[in-house]
């Protein structure tokens, strides 16, 4: 059941370079039980912004959901100005989310890049509750952009790569995962498309990817957000990222 609700800003603070964490409280948070789902956020007053902004669920505690967002354009800029006590209209929860329920006592590799990192934290929590062993690899551009490292450390080992080497390993997440994957059962990844391409190419173990695409409706009605399936015999040949995704089994969809 998808809710539209004006939720209340509890806090909204910068946690890294151009990166903010906002906590939102509302009745619809109760339905946010599945990591990997997202919240479609109305930004701006009036109708200057006709589209909502898709942002992932980073964590849920009771009836408060945390979202980590990077300031990109007008909508996220507007978000930074919303103060505690103000209301924000959200459509949530949207999408399918990560299939974590049936995974128990496995060795799990979480691989996040940039603003793809947040949904993995809520996923990691849920997987840890199910007795899985969590290892995380995070990629950022440089030191100032790093966030959530300690949160992931509380779930298990956490490795960080930065493109310029200003923090952690210099290079890409795949420079780290290449050593780790032989001891893993399953991976979950979210981040920029080139990273997802590199990760899915590198890792022969089962995995799931979470995709991003520019969205219109966010609920499956407008066909803005499709991706192609890799299986030539798939009857539809495509999936809607907002409704059928954003999470897909690795190698089942074409990453472009």
């Amino acid at each position, binding site marked *: 059941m998808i809710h539209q609700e004006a939720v209340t800003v509890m806090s909204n603070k910068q946690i890294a370079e151009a990166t903010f964490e906002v906590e939102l409280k509302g009745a619809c948070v109760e339905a946010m039980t599945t990591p990997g789902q997202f919240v479609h956020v109305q930004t701006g007053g009036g109708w200057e912004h*006709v589209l909502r902004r898709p942002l992932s669920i980073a964590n849920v505690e009771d009836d408060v959901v945390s979202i980590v967002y990077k300031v990109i354009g007008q909508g996220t800029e507007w978000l930074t100005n919303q103060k505690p006590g103000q209301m924000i209209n959200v459509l949530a929860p949207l999408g399918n989310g990560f299939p974590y329920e049936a995974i128990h006592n496995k060795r799990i590799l979480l691989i996040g890049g940039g603003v793809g990192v947040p949904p993995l934290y809520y996923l990691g929590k849920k997987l840890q509750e199910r007795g899985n062993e969590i290892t995380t690899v995070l990629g950022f551009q440089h030191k100032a952009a790093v966030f959530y490292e300690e949160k992931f450390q509380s779930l298990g080992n956490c490795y960080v790569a930065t493109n310029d080497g200003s923090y952690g390993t210099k290079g890409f997440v795949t420079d780290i995962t290449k050593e780790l994957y032989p001891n893993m059962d399953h991976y979950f990844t979210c981040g920029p498309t080139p990273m997802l391409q590199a990760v899915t190419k590198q890792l022969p173990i089962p995995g799931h990817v979470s995709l991003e*695409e520019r969205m219109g409706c966010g609920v499956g*009605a407008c066909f803005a957000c499709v991706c192609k399936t890799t299986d030539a015999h798939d009857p539809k040949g495509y999936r809607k990222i907002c409704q059928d995704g954003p999470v897909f089994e690795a190698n089942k969809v074409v990453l472009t």
Partner: protein
Amino acid sequence: MKLAVNLPGLAMKNPILPASGCFGFGKEYGAFYDLNKLGAITIKAATETARYGNPTPRVAETSSGMLNAIGLQNPGVDSIMEEELPYLANFETPIIANVAGSSEEEYAFVAEKLSQSPYVHALELNISCPNVKEGGIQFGTDPTLAASLTKQVKAVSSLPVYVKLSPNTANIVGMAKAVEEAGADGLSMINTLVGMRLDLMTGKPILSNKTGGLSGPAIKPVAIRMIHEVSQAVNIPIIGMGGVTNAEDVLEFLLAGASAVAVGTANFRNPFVCPEIIEALPGVLERYGYDSIESCIGRSWNHVSN
């Protein structure tokens, strides 16, 4: 307050309907509210066979508007009739099927098929889609082509035909008269204006199709102007659209000369926008001194001493 309006093929309990392409085949918004509340439903464009459409990105935001270049993705007319229409048969709301194609033959093929569906009440000829290489907008900017296509479709279809006009023309009245003459039962207007946005990072267009169709409140003044002009020049009803977000906008479209009003882009920002407009409409009409939908239609130029 009497909200009902009667248009060819469409006995609408109120003048509000979602616009084609912004409402899928109804299921998604049917999860938010009872689709019986709507005056009618326009479904997504159908073509002869399944189309994947354009590569992504397919949408971009602009000031008070958005660009889309979906490219008529749809599962093809047969699949729509088998897989999608039965769901809509659960409602008493009349259905308008949007017809697209790359050639006269394709339009006629799709129209003929859809005419045979017991669930479809009217056809909307999409001669104004700016996002496909062939067909679409080229029919919508040449009155001769548009008239010929309308005739062809009328010849094979037993349902009323609404022709959906493109605003990308210097002479909208000429286009409207040409398709009226060719037998159109009604008009839908406006489709999107052709626009583009560049990604400053890459320097290239955001949409992979480069150009896209501009919709949303940004284009409302263009829609109102065109409907005001066309409604005075033709004798067939107009389904008006372009940037509607609330009941005041609906009244503006009615005053301009539309007999029913479709809501497209606004569904994306507010999934409940259609039922909310329907609920607000009687109060808004009353506030401005109208006692029925009919009494508003065309008041900007009709029965008003200037």
